[in-house]
């Protein structure tokens, strides 16, 4: 199983949640909105490139848009290995957390 950092996992989840529209600024906005904490753009891109290297993400370049001075966007989506890794991570959390008494995650019984 691949090692996944907490921030990396969040990025993966955000990419998955955004579907076809997952690119740098959008991911940052989503994480800011949901997480409350602003990720720095450098850290985000660094994580995206890292995850792509690990084979958890794939990318393609979209068309140019005017608001970016004619520069293209780099879109990301999860690979099947990425999805599998997310599932495994999620499974691990569930396995561990279901034995905790008094912790109500909403999916008991």
């Amino acid at each position, binding site marked *: 199983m691949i090692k996944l950092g907490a921030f990396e996992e969040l990025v993966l989840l955000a990419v998955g949640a955004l579907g076809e529209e997952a690119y*740098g600024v959008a991911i940052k906005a989503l994480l800011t909105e949901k997480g409350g904490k602003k990720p720095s*753009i*450098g850290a985000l*891109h*660094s994580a995206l490139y890292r995850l792509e290297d690990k084979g958890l993400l794939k990318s393609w370049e979209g068309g140019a848009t005017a608001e970016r*001075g004619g*520069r293209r*966007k780099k879109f990301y989506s999860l690979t099947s290995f990425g999805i599998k890794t997310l599932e495994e991570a999620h499974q691990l959390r569930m396995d561990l957390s279901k034995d905790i008494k008094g912790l109500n995650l909403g999916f008991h019984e």
Partner: protein
Amino acid sequence: MDSMNKTSPKPPQLADRFMEWFCSPEVIETLQGDLHELYYERLDEMGRKRANLHYYLDVLDVCRPFAWKKRKSTRINHLDMLSNHFKISLRHLSKDIGGNLLNITGLMLGVVCCIIIFLTIKYETSFDSFHENNKELYRVTNNYYYPTFTMYVGQTPNPMAEALKTDFTAFEKVFAISTNYDHPITVEEELYTSDILYADQHFIQGFDYYNDPKQWIIGNPNEILAKINTTVLTQSLAEKIFGSSQEAVGKIMTLSNETKIEVAGVMKDPPSNTNFPFEQLVSRLTYESFAGSHFGNVSITNTFVQIPEAVDIAQLRPALDAFNEKYMEAVWGEDFVSMDLQPLAEIHLDERFSSDTYTTNKSYLWTLGFIGLLIIVIACINFVNLATAKGVKRSLEIGMRKILGGSKQHILGQFMSESFLLAIVALGLGLLLAQYSFPYFSELTNLNIGNDFVYSPILWLFILGLLVFICLSMGLYPAMLFSKFQPLQVIRGKVMASPSKGVSLRRGLIAFQLVISQVLIIAAIVIGSQLDYFQSKDLGFEKESLMVVKVLGNIPIEKRLALKQKFEQLSFVEETTLSSHIPMSAGHGSTGLTSQDSEIKDRFNVQYIYADNDFLDAMDIELLAGKASISPITEDTVRGYVVNETLIGRLAWDNPEEAIGKRITVNGSEARIMGVAKDFHTQSLHRQIKPVAIAYGIRDYPYLGVKYKTDGLRASVGQMEDTWKTLFPDRNFDYFFQNEQMGTMYDTEVRFSKIIKAFTIISIIIACFGLIGLSAFSSVRRFKEIGVRKVLGASVPSILFLISKEFIFIMLISFALSYPIAHYLTGAWLQEFAYSVDLSWWMFAKACIITTILTLLTVSFQSVKAALINPVESLRRE
């Protein structure tokens, strides 16, 4: 949105430019796009200024490894590549063994010169630095301000040290040493000479190298030198006089003033790089028992102080001035004298004190270092020239390498490794050769460095630096040039974009080499003729037939006169004279002179000599007016003077006759001028002739000048010695020949001349090597052309001219360039002498002829071969 409408602001360009610099092309577009998007968002939210700030921060933030430009991943095993470079280098070097051998030999000679020069400079700058506390030691010096010049004196009056001790607390130590070199000493009736240093235990502790018990062989100098009438010998003196160190201890020696001292210890010889060498240390109490102690006498004493490094010397200045006023100016007169502290390490290189201290000219060391640099540059130029010339041949190889994927760096690496290989071979050989030739060099130049070639860390560092320097200056240009070749053009046969560029550079470099050689040749010629001038210049007296017998020590006047009489009876002796000094070899006195019969009332410096009636005759000094003898000549007072022309001029008398009978006062003795002598030199030709007064009288003069008749005098010296022994059976017969003694006066110049000559020859050899290689190459290249020309009827001389003409042109240019440079440099050197040769055209012409002959010989060596070859041979070759 209003801000956007006005100017449509853009993200700061500086940040963008920075980003473009560090970002890899794959990343930049999308990344910068994201940043711009964020920027415009923020622009609406928080205004331009803050958006700009955030943009800068973002750019800094994305400056992370993922975004950086990646070095081209060549995925080459560098070690393999390197070994391949060396393999190819070796193949190329072995292809042209002759040319490369010449280059390596040239480079090796250059390396030898550089190493030797480096060691020389290191030696000359290391004087007295072997004392661990040398940074804390200072010598007290005095400057005396005469109306026309300032005299820098490293020696101080005897009581200086005591006074400093009582008046200053900032000094950790104050001590004095008195030097008495070549001092006669007697041991069991045998006369020797010794270099004596009168010193005490504070000297041993102050010059702390001597305080190391490893330096002591017998006894502890600290204890011995605290007593009176004791001495510590150096090992070599002990062995010279007594046979061994053990034998020496307990023996009695007698100084020339009859003081008896006991040998109480032996220590090792001091290092040669000290300004205060000695053969024996005599306790200072001994010296104080017979030496005067007055601030008005500059003695043979050097005074030293040790000051902790933390103390700022500049802050001592007021106290020093106050001290100077209290002791020195009180005796010498106000504003006439001042005091300074001279760091120990600077003594040897401070030319101002050359009259009483053994110094080396700093500019002389600079010159040496510069010559070393030039020689190595000449050697490197050879390589550059040959390599660029051969570039044509290598172009196919370079093109092929590039087509097969070799990058610029690889071509660069290939050529750099070739020059590295050459440099390392030359350095290795040079180092070996330097080691073996070092003793000869040290002997040739009398540098007294010693024969031990020392491999010190600093030498290795120097050699490493030399390696880098040679590699870069030799390899960088060809490597850069070749790595720029366009592979396609090269393969198609177009070698260089502009071939004339390489050629003109080559010509320029050859011209540069020739200029250096030419300047060195001129310098050698000028220095040589100045040395000849030392020999041939009319000095105003005859040096060739003069021999001087030393009659030193406590000998009554009658016995001296008896010796003079007996010598005069010898058949080969023409004239003898007893005098206090001998011009140009045994010094002169110096004092003030006044004259009541002249309009000139001020006191000025005059050199004086005391002598008997035969002085002018024995010296062959011409008498212009009056007479040069007085009778009766008496013992007590001076009753007449003979003065030189310069003195007459100084006292504003128009001619020699006018001066006769005028009264002058020298050394407190007033007497009339009875004769005027033609000017004669009393000092080396570095100095102007000064006013001289010869005082006539009889005293216990230490020198007996003997003018002899025949060439066979050397055989007759034995006869003189026999005569000497009848009068002084227990004293050694000590003498010198004037011309030999005077030879040592120009030691520095002779040494300089030898060094310049040696390096001139070497630089010429190296430059010739380069020319040989280059002309060989160019004549091989023109083989076919020559063949065709011969077939069409060209004569051998015309072909010779064709090949040599390029070099002749370069040579003429180098002559034109070298003339002003050499004129300036040699002129500056001749400035050091009050009497010198004039620079004349023939010196330059001679140098031109030498260079022309050498260049043509070298070049034609190859071109004759090419011109003589049968055209059938050259044309058949494909």
